[in-house]
C-alpha cells in the first residue's frame, strides 16, 4: 500500500519534471511566436540574472552577508573573457577554457576582499564591498594608459561568441528541420548553466556547509560555539558567490560581444540585490522569481511612457529613470512589510517573525 503510494508519488514527480523540462525547452519558441524576438533576448538576460541572483543569494541569503559590490565579480568574469577571447590582445581561447578562468579570478578576488573584512561586523563588509565595486569600475575606466589593458570607457569590442568546434552559437543553424537563431541557442546554453547553478545551490542548501551558513546567519556566536569555523565558512560563501558572478560575467561578455565599465555600475549590484530581497532571501524559487520579474520589469515599464504620452501628451518621467526609483521603494517596502520576501522560505519567515516579536 505504502509502496504503491510512493511509486505514485515518484511517478507524478517525474511527470511534473518532464512537463517543466518540456516547457522550458519550448519556451523560447512560444515567446518568439507570441511576443516577438526581442522578448527571447530578454529571456536570455533573465536567465543570466537568475544565475547572478542565485550567486548573490549564497552570500546574502544563506550566509547573511550583505555584499554591495557583487557586480565587480561579474565585471571581472566579463573582462577575463574579453581579454582572452577577442581581438583586443589577439587571443582567441575557447570558451570552456576562459569561463572557468574568469570564475576562478573572481573567486580569488572574493577571498582577497573577504579575508580582511569578514573578521569584522557585517556592516563593514557592506561598505567595503560597495567601495570595491566602485574601485574596480574606476580601474576599468582608467587602465587604458599608459598600457592599454581595459581600453578605458570605450570598452572592448568584437568579443568572440561561444563556439563549439566550428559550431558558432551566435549564428542561425538549421537543426532537425527547424531554424535555431543565435538567441535561441544562447537560451539553451544559458539554461544549461542556470540549471547547473540551481542544482549546486540546492545541494549546498541541504549540505553541512549550507546548514552552517544558516546557523551563522541566525546567530553567529551560537554557530561558533557549536564548532563551526565561521570565518572560513563566510569566506567560502563569499568565494562561491563570486564564482557564480564571474561565470555569469563571462557568459554576458560572449552574449553581448561588447563590454564597457558602464555595464558594471553600482545600480547593477543594487538591482541584483533587489531581485533576491523581493523574491525571498535564501529561497531558490523566490530568488528565481525575483530575478525574472525584475528583468522583465523595464520592458513592462516602457508602457508607462505610452500612458504618460496618452494622458498628458508628454513623457514627464523617463521609464528608465522610474525603474531605479521603484527598486528603491521596493527595497524599503519589502523590508518593512514582508521582510522575508514575496515568496519566502518558511525558515526565513520564522526568523523575521521571531525578531519582530
Amino acid at each position: 500500500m505504502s509502496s504503491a503510494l510512493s511509486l505514485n508519488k515518484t511517478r507524478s514527480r517525474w511527470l511534473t519534471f518532464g512537463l517543466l523540462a518540456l516547457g522550458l525547452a519550448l519556451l523560447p519558441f512560444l515567446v518568439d511566436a507570441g511576443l516577438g524576438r526581442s522578448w527571447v533576448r530578454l529571456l536570455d538576460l533573465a536567465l543570466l540574472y537568475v544565475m547572478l541572483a542565485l550567486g548573490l543569494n549564497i552570500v546574502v541569503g544563506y550566509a547573511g552577508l550583505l555584499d554591495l559590490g557583487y557586480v565587480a565579480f561579474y565585471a571581472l568574469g566579463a573582462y577575463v573573457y574579453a581579454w582572452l577571447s577577442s581581438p583586443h590582445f589577439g587571443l582567441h581561447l575557447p570558451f570552456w577554457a576562459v569561463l572557468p578562468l574568469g570564475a576562478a579570478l573572481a573567486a580569488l578576488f572574493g577571498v582577497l576582499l573577504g579575508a580582511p573584512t569578514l573578521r569584522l561586523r557585517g556592516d563593514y563588509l557592506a561598505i567595503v564591498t560597495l567601495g570595491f565595486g566602485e574601485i574596480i569600475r574606476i580601474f576599468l575606466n582608467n587602465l587604458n594608459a599608459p598600457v592599454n589593458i581595459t581600453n578605458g570607457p570605450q570598452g572592448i569590442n568584437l568579443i568572440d561568441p561561444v563556439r563549439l568546434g566550428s559550431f558558432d552559437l551566435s549564428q542561425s543553424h538549421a537543426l532537425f528541420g527547424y531554424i535555431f537563431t543565435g538567441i535561441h541557442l544562447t537560451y539553451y546554453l544559458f539554461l544549461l548553466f542556470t540549471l547547473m547553478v540551481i542544482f549546486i545551490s540546492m545541494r549546498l542548501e541541504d549540505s553541512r556547509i549550507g546548514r552552517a551558513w544558516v546557523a551563522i546567519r541566525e546567530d553567529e556566536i551560537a554557530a561558533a560555539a557549536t564548532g563551526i569555523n565561521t570565518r572560513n565558512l563566510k569566506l567560502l560563501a563569499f568565494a562561491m558567490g563570486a564564482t557564480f558572478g564571474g561565470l555569469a560575467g563571462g557568459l554576458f561578455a560572449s552574449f553581448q560581444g561588447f563590454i564597457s565599465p558602464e555595464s558594471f555600475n553600482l545600480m547593477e549590484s543594487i538591482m541584483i540585490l533587489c531581485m533576491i530581497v523581493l523574491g525571498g532571501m535564501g529561497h531558490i524559487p523566490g530568488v528565481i522569481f525575483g530575478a525574472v520579474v525584475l528583468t522583465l520589469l523595464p520592458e513592462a515599464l516602457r508602457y508607462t511612457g505610452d500612458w504618460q504620452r496618452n494622458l498628458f501628451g508628454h513623457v514627464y518621467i523617463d521609464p528608465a529613470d522610474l525603474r531605479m526609483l521603484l527598486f528603491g521603494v521596493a527595497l524599503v517596502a519589502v523590508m518593512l512589510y514582508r521582510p522575508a520576501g514575496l515568496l519566502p522560505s518558511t525558515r526565513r519567515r520564522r526568523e523575521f517573525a521571531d525578531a519582530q516579536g
Partner: protein
Amino acid sequence: MDIFLQQLINGLVLGSVYALVALGYTMVYGILELINFAHGEITMMGAMVALSVIGALALAAPGQPGVLVLAAGLVVAIPVCVALGLLIERVAYRPLRHAPRLAPLITAIGVSIILQNVAMLIWGKQYIPFPAILPQGRHTLYGASITDVQIAILLLATGIMLLLILMVQKTRLGRAMRATAQSRQVASLMGVDVNRVIAATFAIGSALAAVAGVMVSAYYGLAHYYMGFLLGLKAFSAAVLGGIGNLGGAMLGGLLLGLIESFGAGYIGDLTGGFLGSNYQDVFAFFVLIAVLVFRPSGLLGARVVERA
C-alpha cells in the same frame, strides 16, 4: 615646497568637509550601530536645495552680497535636510530597530536610491554650476594659493565642530546622547527619552550634512544628483579611520583622509613613474578603509570593535 604646501591646504579644506559628513555617520553609528547609507544622499540634497535657492535669489534680486545669498541658501537647505533625516529615521529605521541586522541596512540602501532618483527627477542628470556669487579672492602664501572660499570652509567647519563638541560634552541633550550610545536600555531606565535622542542625532547629523553639501558644491563649483554616493563612501571611510562612534575620531579621520587624498593625487604620478595618474584620487579612501580594517579595526581613536551577531 610650494607644491607640498598647496596640497596641504587642499587636503585640509577637503578634509574638513569630509569630517563634517563623517560626524553624521559616526553619531548615528555610535547610538544605533547602524550605517546610515542615506547620509551621503542627504548631503547631496543639501547642496541641491541650497543651489536652487541661490539660483532663484540671484535671478529675483540680483546684486545682493554673495555671503547673504549663500546664507539664505543654507537657511532653507538645513531645515529641508533635517526634515529628511527625521523622516528617514521614522519610516525606514525605527520600525526595524529589533529586526535582523540585514534589514535596516537594506532599507538604508533603498532610501539612498530613492533620494538619488528623486533628486534626478527634480534637478535632472546634468551638473549644476554653483553661481558665481562668492568673493573670488585668492591669497598667496609661500608660493601656494588659498582662496576666500577655502578659508571660509576651514573656519566654518572648525567652528561647527567646536560647537558640536561643546554641545555633546556640556548640554543635557549631549549627556543624553552619550548615555544612549553606552546603553539604550539603561539610558531609558534613567529617564532618557531614547527615541527623541535618536531623532535629535539624526537631525544634527543631517544639518551638518547640509552645510557640508553646500561647502562641497562651493569648493568644486558644481553639484550633481550622484555626488552624495562617493562623498558618503569617503566620509564613512574617514569615520572608520578615526574610530567609528568617536566624534574626535571622525574629525581626525576626515582631515587625515583629505590629506591622504590630496597628497596621494599630487604624488602618485611621480611614485609610480607615471603609470597611475591623479584620476585615481577616488581610490585612496577605499584603500585607507581596507588598511584600517586589516591593521586596526577599531580606528585611530576608537574603542575595540567587538564582533557581534
